[in-house]
Structure formats: structure tokens, C-alpha cells
């Protein structure tokens, strides 16, 4: 098991290096090159040359890449041309918001999607099965920003049940040692703040979690159907076990294996959705930060955002692979 984890960790290194190369190439394909990208299109020739010298852009590409890689490893992502602050500082401030939202969305997707898919499979071709299949198809057909807008309109504007924007009521004061507001509220022991934070979390999390929910439900259903026809389930029934035990111990445990993999694959989708969801709900995360940067052509920030998202994808896949190994003895012992 330990060996497997080490091997899996080592495997991520070439991926990270490759990704950094991809981003490096991306920055250099920006219109006019990174100099113009940083200074804006109206920059003079002299100032462009000056900044390119400053950034080492006059050096050969190989040494540029090593410098860039060195900066990346040290966590130096350059500075924003809008705020003049280091990109890393802003990223550290903002990423908890995105992670908190993504986590809540995934929690919603799994908590609803897995039971839904499971029950659908148990009622194969019944009403509930067909309804959930069709429902999940509708779910994946919604552009996420449109769903977010509708949710906001119905539950925040029309019904007034939930707040429509932000992470917390503006007038409320709460210390932010971690910037994960849920954790901050828990640390402060402030129940009112916690309720407020959770209320703000509900709509964005549902908007963001709906597509993963649909996909997870479908995969759970398919996996459960597969497992239900497995010989070992028949063996379990032949032992006279109670149906509940057969379901939990023999069916669900095996059916969840592919679901875990899919949850990993959904992270990318989730982060994608975060860009749009955060925009709709004015959520101060990495997504809305990137959108602002795109409109301001703030390339250092865009690069930082992409590096962050890719990093999260790599890390989640790592976590998923390792937990998969814990669940599946065939991998653990090979």
C-alpha cells in the first residue's frame, strides 16, 4: 500500500512539469507576447523592451523556462497589473472560497446522486428509474450559469428564502483566520454566523452540484445494475443473509468503486462550473477572480488561476486514486 502511494505520488511529478510547460507556452502565445500582455496594448516600444528585459524575455527560451519553473516552485506567480499585488497572495486569499463551494457542491451531488442512482437500479425500469434517468439527462442539459440564474431568481428573488449573492451578510462581522467561512464560524463558535454562511452556500452549491449529481446518479445506477447481476451477490443471497446486509456489504461496496473514480473526474467539471457560478452569485473565489482578470486582460492572474485549477485537478485525482486503492483490495495488493 505504501509502495503504491509512493509510486502514485512520483507519477504526478511529470504531470505537474508538463502542465507548467503548457502554461508557459500559453503565456507566450498571448497576443503580442507576455510583455504586451502585462503592459496592455498601448505600451510603447521602449517600455515593452524594458519589461521584457526585466522578465528575462530576451534570454533563450530554455533559460526562460527554467527561471519560470524556479519561480513556480517558489510560489512566485508574478503580480497583477490591476492591483499590483503578488498573484500568489491574492490566490491564497481567494482559494478557500472556491474550495468551500466546490466541497459543498460535491457533498450535495454525492449525498443525493448515490442514493438516487442506487434506488433507480433497484427499481430497474420502474417509474422511479425512468424518471431519474430522464431527470438526470435534463440536469446535464442545463448550462450551469442559466441554472444558477434561475435558482437565484426563484429562491432568492421571488421567494426570498435564501440570500442571492456573496458568502455572508455584509454587515456581519466574523474573524477570518482560515477564509473557509464555515470553519471560521465554527472556530468562533458563532451559531448565527454559521447559519448565515450555510444559507449563502446553499444556492451556489446546488447550482454547481447539479451536473455532477446527474452524472453520479447515472454511474451509480449503471454500476449497481452491473453488480446486482454478479455471481457473488447470488452467493450472498444463497447464504440466507438479510437483504439489507446483501445490499450494503455486497452490492453497494462494489458499486461504489466506479463512482469514486467518477467523483474524481467530476472535479474538473466542478471547477469549470465554479467560474460561472461564482460570477452569478458574486462569490469571491478563484473563478470570479479569473473572470475579472480576463475582462481586464490581467494575464498574470489568468495564469495563476489556471495553475491553481490544474493543480487542484491533479491533487484530487491523486486523492481519488489512493482512496480507490483503499476500497479495492485488488489494487492494494498488486
Amino acid at each position: 500500500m505504501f509502495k503504491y502511494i509512493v509510486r502514485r505520488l512520483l507519477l504526478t511529478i511529470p504531470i505537474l512539469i508538463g502542465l507548467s510547460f503548457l502554461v508557459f507556452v500559453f503565456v507566450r502565445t498571448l497576443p503580442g507576447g507576455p510583455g504586451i500582455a502585462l503592459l496592455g496594448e498601448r505600451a510603447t516600444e521602449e517600455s515593452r523592451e524594458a519589461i521584457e528585459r526585466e522578465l528575462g524575455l530576451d534570454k533563450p527560451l530554455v533559460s526562460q523556462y527554467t527561471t519560470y519553473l524556479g519561480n513556480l516552485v517558489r510560489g512566485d506567480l508574478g503580480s497583477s497589473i490591476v492591483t499590483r499585488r503578488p498573484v500568489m497572495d491574492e490566490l491564497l486569499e481567494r482559494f478557500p472560497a472556491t474550495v468551500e463551494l466546490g466541497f459543498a457542491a460535491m457533498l450535495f451531488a454525492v449525498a443525493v446522486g448515490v442514493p438516487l442512482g442506487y434506488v433507480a437500479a433497484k427499481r430497474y425500469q420502474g417509474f422511479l428509474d425512468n424518471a431519474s434517468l430522464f431527470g438526470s439527462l435534463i440536469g446535464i442539459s442545463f448550462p450551469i450559469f442559466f441554472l444558477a440564474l434561475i435558482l437565484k431568481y426563484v429562491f432568492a428573488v421571488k421567494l426570498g428564502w435564501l440570500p442571492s449573492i456573496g458568502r455572508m451578510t455584509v454587515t456581519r462581522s466574523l474573524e477570518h483566520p482560515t477564509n473557509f467561512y464555515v470553519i471560521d464560524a465554527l472556530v468562533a463558535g458563532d451559531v448565527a454566523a454559521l447559519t448565515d454562511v450555510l444559507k449563502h452556500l446553499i444556492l451556489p452549491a446546488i447550482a454547481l452540484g447539479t451536473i455532477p449529481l446527474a452524472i453520479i446518479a447515472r454511474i451509480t445506477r449503471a454500476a449497481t445494475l452491473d453488480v446486482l447481476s454478479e455471481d457473488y451477490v447470488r452467493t450472498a443471497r444463497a447464504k440466507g443473509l438479510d437483504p439489507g446486509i446483501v445490499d450494503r456489504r455486497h452490492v453497494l461496496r462494489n458499486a461504489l468503486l466506479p463512482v469514486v473514480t467518477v467523483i474524481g473526474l467530476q472535479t474538473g467539471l466542478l471547477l469549470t462550473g465554479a467560474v460561472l457560478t461564482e460570477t452569478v452569485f458574486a462569490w469571491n473565489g478563484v473563478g470570479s477572480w479569473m473572470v475579472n482578470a480576463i475582462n481586464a486582460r490581467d494575464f498574470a492572474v489568468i495564469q495563476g488561476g489556471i495553475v491553481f485549477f490544474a493543480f487542484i485537478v491533479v491533487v484530487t485525482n491523486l486523492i481519488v486514486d489512493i482512496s480507490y486503492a483503499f476500497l479495492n483490495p485488488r489494487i492494494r495488493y498488486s
Partner: protein
Amino acid sequence: MSVAEAEAAELSLEDQSGLWRDAFERLRRNPGAIAGALIIVAFAAVAVFAPALAPHGPNQQVGRLAAVPPGPSAEFPLGLDQQGRDVLSRIIFGARLSLLVGVVSAGVGLTIGMVLGSVAGYFGRWVDTAVMRTMDLMLAVPQFLLALAIVTALGPGLVQIMVAVGIANVPQFARLLRGSILAQREADYVLAARSLGAPGRRLLLAHILPNSIAPVIVQGTLAMATAIIDVAGLSFLGLGPADPRLTEWGKMVAENAGRLESAPHLVLFPGFAIVISVLGLNLIGDGLREALDPKLKS
């Protein structure tokens, strides 16, 4: 063509037509797929015959300028926008761009992906390694973000958006084709044809690629659905077609997102146009997958 080749080709063709006939039968019995097909045919017809179907031009001012434009009425079934243009007509003309964008983006991804995947799968060795590792890297970046990054590099605009979404689709198709080719290369009928002396390149074109078509069609349909959603998303972020005369559903939603309270029809109608067209594609894609691969029930 030698006799042996001809026979081998005929064999696989027979397989094929049987497969397609069966698939068509299964498709016809699937109400979802039929509904999907009807939706897409309807939308395509609307796109093609937009000038004949739309009561007004997409940019024609038929009502008064208004901060809070009127909603649906007998005269304008889907209401007017704040510039006095007929929403129904704009949605009808918008179908052209949205469907075009879906087809072109998926087509770009499919073409490049198929070429890369076939090359990787057919040549193997370092070509395979180089191509597939690059694809893996691209897959590590979420598809929409990849498209977002590419649009940022290319600048906003209709063509840029289609290229960006298309390129973001490449890795999926490349993987699919390569996997399929690797599997087919070892398939019995290919081994049989090879043992009969059919040359390698012809094998790829005559046997391997046609047999990989089924999953590509499924993936292509679903990629069109994703492309429409992604393009709408990019439009929503302000990276869509810059030309104000171009009508696109995502842009219509984006431009009016702030008027959801005062004039919900401006957001809801184009939004649901996207949902329904994407649902149609997903229904077909799902039906096709089930029809072409009965083992896959998901």
C-alpha cells in the same frame, strides 16, 4: 484488391450493416431517442428556414425602446427586448449560430482528434507516447477552462470561440480513436485479414476505422451538446461574438442576466432554447450509445 481482401472486406461489411440495422431497430424503439431526433430536426429546420419563419428580422426594431420591455403578448409571443426587437425572431435567428457553433466546434475536435488518435494508435511507439502524453496533459485542465484559456490567447470572437471549444475537445476524441484502434488491431477479423495478406494501411482504412465509427458518433453527438453549453458559457463571460448584430442564445442570456427580475422573458426564453436543444442532442447521444452498444446501459 485480392480475393482474400475482398472476402475479408465483405465479411466486415456484412457485420457492419447488421450492426447498423440492429442499432436502427433499437433506436426506433427508444422513445427518448425519437424525441431527441424530433427536437434536433425541428431546431435544424428553424435554423435553416429562419428568414421564412421569423416574423421579424433579428435586429429589426418593431417596438419602442424601453428600460423595462414588455413581456409576451399576442403580437409578440415571446415579448420584446429593451431595444424594441422581437425576442422570438431573435431566438429563431439565434438557432443558426448556436447550432453552427455546436457542429463546427465538435467537428474541429473530432477531425483533429481522429487524426491524432489514429496516428498514435496506428504507429504506436514514441509517436503514441508523445501524442497521448500531450493529450493527458490537456485532459488535466478542465475542458471549459482550456477553452477559456485558448480564447484568452486568441482574443474574443465567434471563430476564436469555436476553435477554442473544438481544440478543448481534441483529447477526448484522440483517446477514443486510439483506444478503439488498439482494441481493433487485435480483433479476430483484423488478424484474419492480416493473415490473408491485406496490407497495413488498407487495413486501417477499410476495417479498423469503420469499426471505430460507432463510439465516435456517440461521442460526437455528446460533444455537440457540450460545445453548445460551453460556447454559451464563454458568451456569458463576455468572450462571445463581439459583433452586436450577431445573435447567439448564450449572449442573449448574458446581456440580460441583470434584468431577470424586471423582464424575465429576456433570460428564460433563450436559456430554455439552449436547454431544449442540448437535451435533444443528449437524448440522441444516449439512445445511440444504447443502440450501438447494448452492453452499456448507463
